[in-house]
């Protein structure tokens, strides 16, 4: 199971970075959340390319389904930001020391 097992509802935004990178980066975020903003800024400042979905922009039923799917795939009730690297590795919350470790 990986991120590919999850149907992403809603419009995914893509940010083009400036750095050569090996990791595929996906972020589930909340648009009003300052930890999520810190997470996006951190990715921007490091020059990473990534895709993200602001989950507060999708309807509640689909959002709850998405959270259940994330829990099923990753075995953890997500909090946000929820980072997924190379479809399999994840970090729940903004923990830059962990992000640094799992992003290549």
């Amino acid at each position, binding site marked *: 199971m990986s991120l590919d097992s999850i149907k992403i509802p809603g419009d995914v935004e893509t940010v083009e970075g400036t750095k050569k990178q090996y990791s595929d980066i996906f972020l589930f975020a*909340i*648009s*009003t*959340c*300052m*930890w*999520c*903003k*810190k997470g996006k800024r951190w990715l921007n400042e490091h020059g990473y390319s990534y895709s993200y979905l602001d*989950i*507060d922009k999708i309807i*509640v039923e689909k*959002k*709850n389904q998405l*959270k259940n799917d994330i829990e099923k795939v990753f075995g953890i*009730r997500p*909090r*946000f930001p929820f980072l997924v690297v190379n479809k399999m590795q994840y970090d729940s*919350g*903004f*923990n830059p020391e962990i992000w640094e470790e799992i992003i290549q």
Partner: protein
Amino acid sequence: MTKKSYDDVQEYIKKISNRKGWKLNSDPETLNDLIKGLLDNFNRLGYYNCPCRDSQEDRQLDRDIICPCRYAEPDIAEYGYCYCTLYLNTDYDQNQLMKMIPERRPPII
């Protein structure tokens, strides 16, 4: 529903922090993000849902995460600040790096 302005939110959080004996986050960028988050939530949902927590768009289901949330007091007592870092213990020294604290709220859905 009457829309709130940026100043309304600022006034509201000042009032809460005074009443509770807390202080507000002093980092301008973070505070601005938090005020804007609360403002967006109020004007979309009709209540001050915690900007850093996922809403069910239902005041009853979200009642424990309406700012100031039910977990702010124990979090400030234990960590020095609440989940979104809006409110801090008056003794907390903000020169140290603030990390995300564990989520005290039990899963509801």
